[in-house]
């Protein structure tokens, strides 16, 4: 971070370190800019565009999470254009994804007076739950494509590269190589993807089963065969004879 520079956010003069983003500068000044895909410990890609702000002199709105402050920059965080984009993005999300386990996004809904049923023609994304390993389930009907899981699986943390994307555009989904089950992939079950998932699309299997009403004992017996199979595999690999 370099020398402090002076910018204006919502008529307020703010000192910010050169090289900091608009989001960081606003946070320091106590001005709240909403975010969805942004995570402090993941590479910011400017995907969700909820953090867009109006920067004087710019043709389009600018994503606060990645755009760096410039000396003399004049920023408006709540213009009509900004509000329209944020509200519409939220409404489109609600018509695409199951947000029932995303309380932070639901809060934004109230703040921006979004109408969850704005798009009656909308076809939501509703792939089936993938339950292919004993550690976590993948419910991509809840996935908002924030990319955090793909990033922590790759260069942002684990360097495992078990997941990437299938499809493109609206049909994009997180996927393993040729959609193989997770245990056949390079996944090491570190659980970091589960930890960064903001919407409950990735969930510990035990939590998932508990939520469905299974008792701990039932869960033990349900997953026993999986555990035993793994144990057998390990024994065989140690003792091929």
């Amino acid at each position: 971070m370099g020398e402090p520079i002076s910018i204006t956010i919502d008529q307020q003069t703010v000192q910010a370190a050169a090289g900091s983003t608009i989001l960081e500068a606003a946070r320091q000044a106590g001005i709240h800019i909403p975010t969805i895909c942004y995570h402090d410990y993941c590479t910011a890609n400017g995907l969700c565009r909820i953090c867009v702000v109006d920067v004087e002199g710019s043709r389009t709105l600018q994503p606060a999470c990645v755009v760096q402050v410039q000396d003399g920059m004049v920023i408006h965080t709540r213009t009509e254009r900004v509000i329209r984009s944020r509200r519409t993005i939220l409404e489109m999300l609600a018509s695409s994804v199951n947000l029932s386990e995303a309380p932070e996004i639901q809060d934004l809904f109230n703040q921006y007076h979004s109408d969850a049923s704005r798009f009656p023609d909308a076809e939501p994304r509703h792939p089936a739950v993938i339950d292919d390993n004993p550690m976590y389930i993948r419910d991509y009907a809840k996935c908002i494509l924030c990319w955090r899981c793909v990033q922590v699986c790759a260069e942002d943390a684990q360097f495992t590269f078990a997941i990437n994307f299938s499809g493109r555009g609206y049909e994009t989904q997180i996927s393993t190589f040729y959609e193989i089950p997770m245990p056949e992939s390079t996944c090491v079950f570190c659980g970091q993807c589960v930890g960064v998932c903001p919407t409950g699309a990735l969930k510990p299997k035990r939590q998932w089963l508990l939520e469905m009403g299974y008792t701990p004992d039932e869960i033990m017996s349900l997953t026993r065969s999986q555990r035993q199979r793994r144990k057998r595999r390990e024994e065989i690999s140690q003792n091929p004879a």
Partner: protein
Amino acid sequence: MADLDLSPLLQRLEGYRPLGRTALLPALHDAQNIYGYIPQPAAEAIGRALNVPLADVYGVIEFYSLFYSQPIGKTVIHVCNDPACALAGSETLFKQIRFQQEMVSPNGPPSSLTIEMAPCLGLCEHAPAILVQGQPVARANRQSWQDLVSGKGERPSSVLGGTVSILTANCGLGHTVELSEYLDLGGYQALRKALNTPSRHIIEEIKAAGLVGRGGAAFPTGVKWESAANAPGDIKYVVCNADEAEPGTFKDRVLMEDDPHSILEGIIIAGYAVGAKKGYIYIRGEYLLPYEAMKKAVEDAREAGFLGNNILDSDFTFDIEIRRGAGAYICGEETALFESIEGKRGFPRLKPPFPTTHGLFGKPTVINNVETLANVPVIIRKGAAHYRKLGTPKSPGSKLFCLSGDVVRPGLYEVPFGVPFHHLLYDLAGGVRPGHHFQAALFGGAAGAFATQDHLNVRLTFEDLKEAGLPLGSGVITVFDETRDLRDICLRLARFFAEESCGKCYPCQMGTQRQLEVMERIARGDVRQEDWQRLQDVGWTMTDSSLCGLGQTAASAILSAMKHFPHLFQPA
């Protein structure tokens, strides 16, 4: 699967291995050529040879619509489904081919044929057009099923018109101008002249000529070159953007097929001017013939010493590699194109940093459209002052316009900047098809805007069109007569963007889909009161907040249709 013979692929992979990930698309093309699709073991072998994570290999296969992870027919037919071909009956054609296929194999084994609807194939002057195994067929509705599937369909030949022939001087001869003929026609003299001129002077000459980019963004070419030339670093690249995919555009295809060396000459001069040693030509996957023409041209130029070490006995060393896309409109976006060359999904990057400092492989890069580069030898050969004799002070030179749709003579027209639209449409292209009159024209393709009767007198320059609220874009003009349902055209444009959105940023990923869903209902005639505000909100959210130019223009045509023809979007 067990009997899959990987040896032919492994042989190819030996050559690619040292290149690493950048060879991913070429390797996937090879695998698909060998096996007809990309079987899982082949993808695995490719990932291991190029050191690319397997999940990433699959991610790349899945991104590009011409790569198939599942078996498909031995023969693949792509039927263009975008406005110009739709006006000529592509939808009926598609159904007929499907029907014929079912007749051929009612119960027996399915005929080994895959028939797909495709985005604009860049053959709009030959509508309705199809590709059979990548080979273009013109006016496919007038040909028999047997001719179509056996590859005996009518081959398109260039249709040229206009009042000047500067960029198209060597086009429309009925064949590709090869090296010897190009030299006879004065080819590579500009390169010879350039190599005897300090590179700074070349950039000054391009700036003085006032050349601006012809791909759609109209950025001053000389400024771009200067910025890359001044950028720190020894390794720099020149990239020719031949990913022409804007619906209605076919100018770059004609230039590449008819006069490939003029483009090469432009690229080599650009490389010399900015200090690059390597150039890339990225050609869209659907353009097989332009690819073959450019490939031969590069080989011949290398053989003759116009590429390689010490070109024409100078100190300048430069070579060119050709890359094929694989079905992704987004790769025409410059940073998405870099990602694609680097062997990744074609996701556009955040800007800044800009390509002139952080481009291909993170190095300073000049990326120019085919037509832009074709202007370069013209400017260098005769000088900026001569070049400026045509056109207007703010839009110097000549421009290629791709006219298609309901016109008497669809084709590629070269005119000086500044001629009125009606001159191009009525005097040169013969006007609207007989018995009908002008309703509207789409300027700039899917990412463009509609012109109405009121625009017929507009002069075709950057400044006049800007004032009229019309984009010049890449020079597309698709004409619609009074019988055409513009709602259907808007639906097609909406479908195009929903198919081609990369899915990276939310406004475009979901906005193109929501726009399509609303347009599907409106095109059926079921228009609701709230649709107006729905389309406006989705449209402006994409325009204001999307990450790249695709999303920022994905609502442009529909918003302009709402402005000029509001009744189409309101309940009866």
